[in-house]
């Protein structure tokens, strides 16, 4: 087996780039030669950047450098033996941890799907609160072609779109384009590639104007209903609790409109 420590080898490279845009940030997956597949080193950098963003930005854009959005977790690294068995097992954990960090992050995440999103690239779209796609981007879960179930991208897709649409992606392994993804609600909108970043920045700037405490609680409420609170009356009560929590934290004077 090769002696190979990806962290020391790649740490000097910027595999993930953070751009400070004032009240919002833009995170770019920067491994274009590998279709922005996230190897261990890239995930370490992404996790560090996510931590840096906590409490600093109300909105964060996630996008990819070059012509791909994200080809998932780097499969080559697992296959070429550079990751030993226990490390491979940790890597499985590592990816769900990375995804969980985004889910629990106080910022609103906007995926700007600039190009192909495959396998775990789709789980990145799913965990982002909002997503805008290049209409020509191809999105797919090819795992079934390799006799497997999309470990993280499968369940996260099933939680986001309707059954027939999830079945299509998981059972056929076929790719859909950005326009279809918008029709299915996997992303919010599909736009021509040239307009993508402009649209994503407009969304992020708009959200960044809102009260960050309110944004954080709203994100939590969206995550909880209907996933945890599926009953109508309980959901409405939960909504009142969320509103009360926000009022309590930011003060009534900021909450009430100045004029009626």
């Amino acid at each position, binding site marked *: 087996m090769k002696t190979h420590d990806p962290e020391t080898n790649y740490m000097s490279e910027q595999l993930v780039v953070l751009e400070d845009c004032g009240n919002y940030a833009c995170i770019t997956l920067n491994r274009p030669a590998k279709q922005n597949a996230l190897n261990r080193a890239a995930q370490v950098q992404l996790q560090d950047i996510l931590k840096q963003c906590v409490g600093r930005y109300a909105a964060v854009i996630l996008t990819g450098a070059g012509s791909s959005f994200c080809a998932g*977790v780097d*499969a080559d690294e*697992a296959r070429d033996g550079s990751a030993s068995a226990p490390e491979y097992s940790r890597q*499985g954990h590592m990816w*769900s941890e990375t*995804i*969980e960090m985004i*889910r629990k992050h106080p910022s609103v995440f906007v995926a700007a799907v600039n190009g192909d999103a495959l*396998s775990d690239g789709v789980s990145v779209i799913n965990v982002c609160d909002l997503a805008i796609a290049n209409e020509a981007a191809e999105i797919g879960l090819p*795992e*079934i*072609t*390799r*006799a*497997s*179930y*999309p*470990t*993280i991208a*499968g*369940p*996260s897709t*099933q*939680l986001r*779109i*309707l*059954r*027939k*649409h*999830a*079945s*299509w992606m*998981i*059972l*056929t*392994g*076929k790719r859909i384009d950005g326009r279809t993804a918008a029709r*299915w609600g996997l992303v919010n909108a599909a736009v021509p590639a040239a307009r993508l970043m402009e649209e994503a920045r407009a969304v992020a700037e708009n959200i960044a104007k809102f009260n960050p405490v309110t944004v954080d609680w709203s994100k939590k409420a969206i*995550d909880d209903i*209907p*996933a*945890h609170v*599926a009953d109508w009356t309980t959901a409405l009560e939960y909504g009142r609790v969320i509103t009360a929590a926000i009022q309590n934290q930011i003060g009534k004077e900021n909450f009430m409109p100045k004029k009626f």
Partner: protein
Amino acid sequence: MSEDLILFEEFENYAVITFNRPEKLNALSSPMVLQLQHRLDECRGRHAVIVITARGKAFCAGVDLKERNEWVRKGAKIRGDNVRNKWYDTMGTIIRNHPAVFIAAVNGLALGGGATLVNICDLAIMAEDAEIGVPQIRWGIYPGIAGASTQVRVLHKHAAWPILTARSLTAADAVDIGMVNFAVPADKLLDEAKALAAHIAQFDPIALDWCKKALDQIPSHIADWSVALEYGRGVTSIIQDQTGKGGR
């Protein structure tokens, strides 16, 4: 049992089941559902993909009401001795727990039980001129199985519309709300369904079976994000264990 109410055709790695009671709009009679159950049983472990379609103008007009009403007049004896219960078992457990991937090729009108069949199939293709309906409210009843199965497949407002208005959904409507995957001209329907079946049948049958199970579990049983992701890792481990393949 002498009549072939269910036609069965086997291809290299998938099968096509065809409802064959066109003069009754493929309404489900007891012998017909029984024949269907036998065919489904035969397919277990033999075919990874099954296409369900029908002969004639209709896909399936639901449970044969004439037969059901006679049974009601005679009075219930044991559970399972009437067409409705047999159909309920077929939809509720047999197809759901079947290892094959099911594709509905909706050639024409799908009413009541026909709509349930569309809902239980993993994928569905529809002829452009076909319609789906759950018109039971007209007779003062709630579409027990067809309504409920629609509610667990599409969004709330989209399920409420056909249930409360009794209006049929066109193929375009059904595609829009995600009740079927896509619509094609009627003369291309079967070819499209077979091509899709052959495409899916090239994949590992164990992986397909577990993918189907995972689709059934999330979100209906597992709605929590973190638990769903952990379940995904479990499914992948089981597939690797059973296929002996160390893919990702």
